[in-house]
């Protein structure tokens, strides 16, 4: 599989936002411009038919990566390549856009409340001129609605007549309507109830197998990510902390942040263990800490971590950005309980 050319590649991808206050206020307060480094130099690739997930806490930049991937944002630096062709240099061509689609987090905001479902689903079909007659369009919409587990009759209704889970199905039908090969899913189940989440995750896996889709999956939920991913990238303050094959990440998390994140997850099995919270708060991405951004919260931090920013280096079958792992000091931090229990 490693030989297959990647469907999607991000190379040193960065996106900075200017969050300065208006000029007049800046002059009064005598402060300079302020830049938010939402995504700061990350690289990964996704082979065709596979799923790569990005996990991290809010503000880590994972949703920005999703928007960079589909061209809603243009990169500040670095590039995005889709099927071997650069997307960043010029605007994506209609053909490239047709082949990539996005599923959003909030099923209540992602469907235009004034449109009937059949028009929502048909929008990409019309935008790309995929069918020529009205009858063809109707047939295709009916087929898509059936494919996501809805009735073709639902096409005449408005979004408010559906529950959150059904709306997310409509979103998926819309995303599939242009026959895409690559789907970017930004927290597609985090606004849903857990029983509905299972329905949607099953549906997405099923569609991936049937249609050979490639997924970039964004989530904050490690358990969800484990179910869907082939590879997982853990993000912290705009950078990748660790990038590893899914099973290997859960068998042996290397980066101290990954371990802390796993340790903080509530324990459903009620083994009686206490969660060990990660100390401190996520720092502001406008004024990130020096050196390794995680060092103020890291039990393994030393002087080098405060000074020098770690680069992604291979460690086993993973890539890890951590001085402690590179120097072999990481054994000082115990593996999370769930890893120990599994072993």
């Amino acid at each position, binding site marked *: 599989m490693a030989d297959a050319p990647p469907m999607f590649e991000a190379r040193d991808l960065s996106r900075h936002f200017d969050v300065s206050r208006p000029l007049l206020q800046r002059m009064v307060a005598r402060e300079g411009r302020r830049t938010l480094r939402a995504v700061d130099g990350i690289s990964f690739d996704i082979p065709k038919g596979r799923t790569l997930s990005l996990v991290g806490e809010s503000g880590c930049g994972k949703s920005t990566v999703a928007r960079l991937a589909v061209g809603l944002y243009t990169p500040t630096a670095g590039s995005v390549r889709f099927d071997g062709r650069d997307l960043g240099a010029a605007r*994506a061509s209609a053909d490239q856009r*047709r082949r990539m689609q996005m599923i959003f987090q909030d099923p209540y*905001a992602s469907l*235009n409340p004034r449109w009937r479902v059949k028009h929502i689903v048909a*929008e990409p079909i019309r935008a790309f001129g995929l069918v020529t007659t009205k009858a063809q369009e109707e047939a295709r919409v009916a087929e898509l609605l059936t494919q996501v587990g809805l009735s073709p009759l639902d096409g005449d209704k408005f979004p408010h007549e559906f529950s959150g889970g059904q709306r997310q199905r409509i979103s998926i039908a819309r995303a599939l309507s242009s026959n895409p090969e690559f789907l970017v899913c930004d927290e597609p189940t985090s606004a849903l109830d857990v029983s509905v989440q299972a329905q949607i995750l099953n549906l997405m896996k099923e569609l991936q197998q049937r249609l050979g889709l490639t997924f970039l999956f964004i989530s904050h939920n490690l358990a969800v990510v484990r179910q869907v991913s082939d590879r997982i990238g853990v993000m912290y303050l705009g950078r990748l902390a660790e990038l590893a094959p899914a099973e290997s990440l859960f068998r042996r998390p290397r980066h101290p942040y990954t371990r802390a994140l796993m340790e903080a997850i509530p324990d459903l099995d009620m083994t009686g263990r206490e969660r060990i919270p990660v100390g401190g708060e996520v720092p502001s991405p406008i004024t990130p800490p020096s050196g390794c951004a995680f060092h103020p919260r890291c039990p393994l931090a030393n002087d080098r971590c405060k000074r020098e920013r770690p680069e992604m280096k291979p460690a086993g079958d993973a890539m890890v950005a951590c001085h402690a792992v590179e120097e072999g000091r990481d054994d000082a931090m115990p593996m999370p309980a769930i890893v120990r229990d599994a072993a």
Partner: protein
Amino acid sequence: MAETLRRFFDSDLWFSFTRSPVTVLSAIVAAICILGAVFAPWIAPHNPFDLASLNLIDAFKPPAWTEEGARDYVLGTDDQGRDVLSAIMYGARVSLLVGISATVFATLLGVSLGLLAGYVGGAIDSLLMRICDIQLTFPSILVALLVDGVVRAVLPREVHADIALFVVIFAIGISEWPKFARTVRGSTLVERNKEYVQAARVIGVPKARIMVSHVLPNVIGPVLVVATLNLGLAILSEATLSFLGVGVPPTQPSLGTLIRIGNDFLFSGEWWITIFPGVALIAMVLSVNLLGDWLRDALNPKLR
């Protein structure tokens, strides 16, 4: 059509309407004003503009229920012997025409510019909003006076008389578009960042189409409220301009004109010439404003 009607009578809007006596009363008053104005040529007892039917002997007749009143002239007559009731109906016609046209003009201009400012943002947004800011620091009647004055100064008198009505409409409309632009821009800023708009952007739907087919239908609700409330204001603005003598041409007297003319006789005892047009104006504006208030509450999900 039947389907649309059925849905309307089943809607929350209709429900909240029937539950508010003040609103129902306002709607009735507004309907009387509007129907009376629209059908004036057919239902008015006299034609105040038909010089042949005017008789100076009938001048200054008080209302019908007073001792000297004539049954023919329910609300009395003015100095020319014109029936006040008919003059009000014809005058309301002009007032409504100007009010509605000016509001439609202000709405179209304000909604388009607000949508553009909110969706495109950047320099266009800053420019348009600064114009709004500047204009909103002046009372709108002052803006209307200024526009009217400029047009008068630029155009020759005989041309001006022909287009005076349009000048007033333009003047009032241009003085009130910022309210619409601000309302629409605010809602557009919210809608623009919603995910359904992003979904359309992902597939490359052109900006203009996103604005018209996605954003516009979702920002139009508050505009209806502003437009209704604004209609009352526009009618008042027109009345003020006409009262000051710079509004509609004297050949087409509006309610404001009638009030101005009657004003001269207020102290000589012929109060009805100015009071009744005044009452009509108040009834019209108040009922429209009450309807607007109700619409605002009914469309506001937080108050429901």
